[in-house]
């Protein structure tokens, strides 16, 4: 997930783009320890694990969705392999939706 922080640097001052992390942890202590460590510079929220999986249709983590300005989900990247390794990949998706 450090790559999200790197990718975010480009959009930090961009009011048209938002990064939101959603934790589905069920262990508060552990989540807060993780957040203290990672110090994410963007919004971190929490959702119920089962509800999130069911509504968003993922069964592995991380699951990343790109949503356009009209609230339509336009891309989904599952797991680390396809997505997790590159800052350019994150900004490619964002730029498609501008």
């Amino acid at each position, binding site marked *: 997930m450090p790559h999200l922080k790197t990718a975010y640097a480009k959009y930090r001052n961009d009011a048209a783009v*938002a990064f939101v992390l959603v934790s589905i942890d069920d262990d508060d202590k552990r989540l807060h320890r993780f957040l203290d460590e990672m110090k994410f510079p963007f919004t971190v929220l929490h959702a119920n694990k089962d509800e999130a999986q069911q509504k968003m249709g993922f*069964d592995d983590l991380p*699951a990343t969705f790109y949503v356009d300005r009209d609230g339509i989900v336009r*891309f*989904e990247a599952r797991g680390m392999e*396809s997505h997790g390794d590159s800052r350019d990949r994150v900004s490619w998706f964002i730029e498609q939706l501008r």
Partner: protein
Amino acid sequence: MAAALFAQSAARDDLARGRAFWDQRLAQSAMAALEIAARDKDTAAEAHEALGRLYTFKGWQQESVFPGWHDEPAYRARALAELRAAVTADPSRRSAQEALRIAEGFASAEKVDPAPPREDVKALDARIDAYRNAAAPIADLEAAIEARAKAQADPAPYFTGAQILLDRGEHDRAIALAERGRAASDRFVGENLSAYQMAGKSQGAYSRGRATAADLIGWAAYLKKEYDRAAASLGDAERLSRGQDFANQFHLGELARATNQSDRARQHYLDALALSAGPPSLRQRATDALRAIQAGDRAAGSFDAWLETELTRRRDERRSAALKSVVDRALPPLTLTAVDGRPYDAAGLRGKVLLLNFFASW
């Protein structure tokens, strides 16, 4: 009198079975047997303690003990309750008091380390490994495999053993062991299903075990020159590993080459090399095989440049294939809160391009 004695020995049996299952890390069977033993007053204290220890492991200590396992916070309160029940059933029971003290420490700790590796199991693994280069009798190796499988029920000893037998030219015995490994893997995952937390992760664990077995069986068949059987089994392994296993792609390459399908062989060798895994010696063999195929097919062009282009293309394709366009649906309404539990108003996100990343700290 006789009935009471009989009941007592039945409860003793359940307790012994439960403990033995748990020693092997067969959680579901262990819990079922121990729960029965906990209902009999003669075995209640011991059974509650054993359950409490099992739940303590599941709640705080099973993270990454096996690939894909995560702690299950839902078991934490149950661990404390079982251990308290054990102490209540027999207030003088030292081991239960000690286990309760440890679990209470975990409950108030900031962080609990996963359970350490089991020394007995490690020693038995080392015994199997010692047969890699030895010319010891096969029966001794097989005894070492049985001993390790009895100590802990995961499929590793069967798969390691099958590989060693393959290297020693014992193809039929290797196939038999790989088949037992597949059964052990299915059972082990099933017994510990909740430890995987998500359906995708437990499915992945099932598939890994089955793919490993299918690849071993297919490779053994290839070495026996039973090419049809090899093709079927290596193909199963490819489907189960979604083409992402280096050894399997290499094996498919070797099979295609042995059956004079050079286009196919080229694809599999390239698919193998485009993965970042595999020991250097096998990567070299795949590269050499490709060089030989290319030399036969086209005289001109630099092999190295061709290889680099092909590998880059494959890596890019693999990335984009993993992207599934769900999509083109409105973002479903989700109940989102701040991480401190307070309500969150998503109005501020409206009209923006949104990156929404679901994660867990485990």
